[in-house]
């Protein structure tokens, strides 16, 4: 089939010009519906977000233009400072946990064993199932009276006293970190596994003949070759986690005492519960610098390939 096609292919100069002329029109035509929708429902809201954040709009009133007052006020607000701090703790610790556990998981799954596909599928489940519903299950598992996590930990003798999972500022942060790691780990594991599978076996064999042992092979071959995959996965996860909403909203609602409040949940509370839309918009926009950094790093990585 393709050999026939090749012989019938016209030399470049004889290529019918109507195709070339049409190409641009067809091209623009085909992307226009997508572009239109993105302009109306993504680009315009973004511009609107910037505009609203510069006003003192509240629910039901358009508000006045107040320059950067919302941002300046927020930066001095201790609640907001804690939100910034929490967001960083949440993002850094979960991305670190997901990456290190994901790496271990991928190395395990890269070995040959029976029912490997089934195991891989089962491990992906936390990532597939609606997060709001699985987080409800975690809420029930962390229940102050009936916590099955405590039941398991007490029963196996790991702890001797109940842990107040969602009731204590420190443990509440630990809880949301555990749940976020639980949800995001499959993505790391499977993506890194895909990276592992592309590493040619001959590299390891060559290293073995040079006398390299297990850890040396991992450090000098596996890790450097995984670097592009790891970079992409970490960047993706960083922006998703930084802008995360559901896990915290359902599990702790930012509490207790604001201990788990992060950007998105605070923006929701301020704009839609308290009705201070201008201020809420400003909080959301604090996600933008993070997004920008991720985009720049990601583009740099893609260019390199």
């Amino acid at each position, binding site marked *: 089939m393709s050999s026939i096609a090749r012989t019938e292919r016209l030399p470049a100069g004889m290529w019918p010009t109507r195709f070339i002329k049409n190409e641009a029109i067809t091209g623009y035509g085909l992307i226009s519906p997508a572009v239109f929708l993105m302009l109306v429902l993504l680009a315009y809201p973004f511009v609107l977000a910037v505009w609203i954040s510069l006003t003192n709009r509240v629910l039901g009133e358009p508000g006045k233009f107040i320059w950067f007052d919302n941002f300046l006020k927020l930066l001095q607000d201790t609640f907001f400072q804690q939100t910034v701090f929490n967001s960083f703790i949440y993002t850094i610790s979960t991305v670190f946990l997901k990456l290190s556990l994901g790496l271990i998981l991928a190395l395990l799954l890269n070995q040959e064993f029976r029912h490997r596909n089934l195991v891989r599928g089962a491990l992906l489940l936390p990532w597939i199932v609606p997060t709001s519903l*699985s987080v409800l299950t975690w809420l*029930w598992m962390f229940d102050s009276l009936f916590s099955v996590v405590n039941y398991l930990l007490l029963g196996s003798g790991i702890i001797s006293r109940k842990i107040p999972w969602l009731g204590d500022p420190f443990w509440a942060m630990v809880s949301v970190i555990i749940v976020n790691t639980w949800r995001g780990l499959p993505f790391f594991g499977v993506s890194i596994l895909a990276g592992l599978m592309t590493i040619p076996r001959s590299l390891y064999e060559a290293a073995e003949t040079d006398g390299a042992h297990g850890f040396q092979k991992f450090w000098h071959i596996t890790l450097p070759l995984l670097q592009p995959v790891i970079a992409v996965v970490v960047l993706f996860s960083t922006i998703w986690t930084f802008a995360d909403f559901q896990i915290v909203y359902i599990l702790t609602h930012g509490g207790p005492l604001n201990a788990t409040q992060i950007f*998105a949940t605070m923006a929701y509370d301020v704009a839609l519960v308290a009705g201070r839309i201008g201020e809420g918009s400003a909080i959301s926009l604090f996600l933008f610098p993070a997004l920008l950094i991720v985009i720049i790093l990601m583009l740099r990585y893609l260019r390199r390939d």
Partner: protein
Amino acid sequence: MRRKHLRIIKRIFGLYLPLAAFLFFALFPFYWMLLSSFKSNPELYNLRAKRLWIKSPTLEQFHELFKKTAVLRWLGNSFFVSFLTSLISMTFGIMAGYSLARLKFPGAEAFGLATFITYLVPTTLIFIPLASVVQSLRLTNTIWALVATYPTFLIPFCTWMLIAYFKSIPKDMEECAMIDGCSRIGAMIRIVIPMAIPGIVFSGMFSFTLSWNEFVYALTFISDTTHKTMSVAVPTELIRGDAYFWGELMAASLIGSVPVALLYSFFMDYFVSGLTAGALKG
């Protein structure tokens, strides 16, 4: 003989035990969800009972759920929104993806880049102004608010995914068809799309899952019980104040999780290959 023992021990500690730990961590919440939804209330709240097993399984929780709530309606809403938005996004995604993968026109590269960037924009960055856009379109509190807004994160995903797929299909076939008198669009529909079916199935499935699981927009734009989708209705309608009906909550969570889990188990190979392709291509 000793060598063989050593190998078995290595296999147990280097593979089976850690893998079992990961499986336990990943799956225990689902086991707990399943268990809780088939227990009766006395058994559910009995701290002296064997908690990791059911003594007398019952459908009581499901009965109560169907009697007291509009769970069927929420399921219907979820299906409607997810199906429609995936269809819209796949259509627009195929068009844009083909255009950006194949056609040469000024700005094509910039659009490709823009697709990728919009794919990264989190919904929580723009949900507040989007609420007022939705309101001025008079869509607040209707399911159409979701039908209109979900494609904003689905189209970039589908387009990005499909650009990669279309690029992997050799150009010769469609050029041949075009010389035989097929138009560009004709060649796209008859030649390229059938060859890109795996990519299209994957992006459709994934769009469906993303819509089904979406939370922030659905929570923001819809407050009417009858128009909610599963992912928002269960945590907002079944928890009233301080009263948690855990049996019903778990039964509802189970019902809301099963459709995507089923979809996923049927198409698992597509899913894994698509996911990894996405991660590798970035």
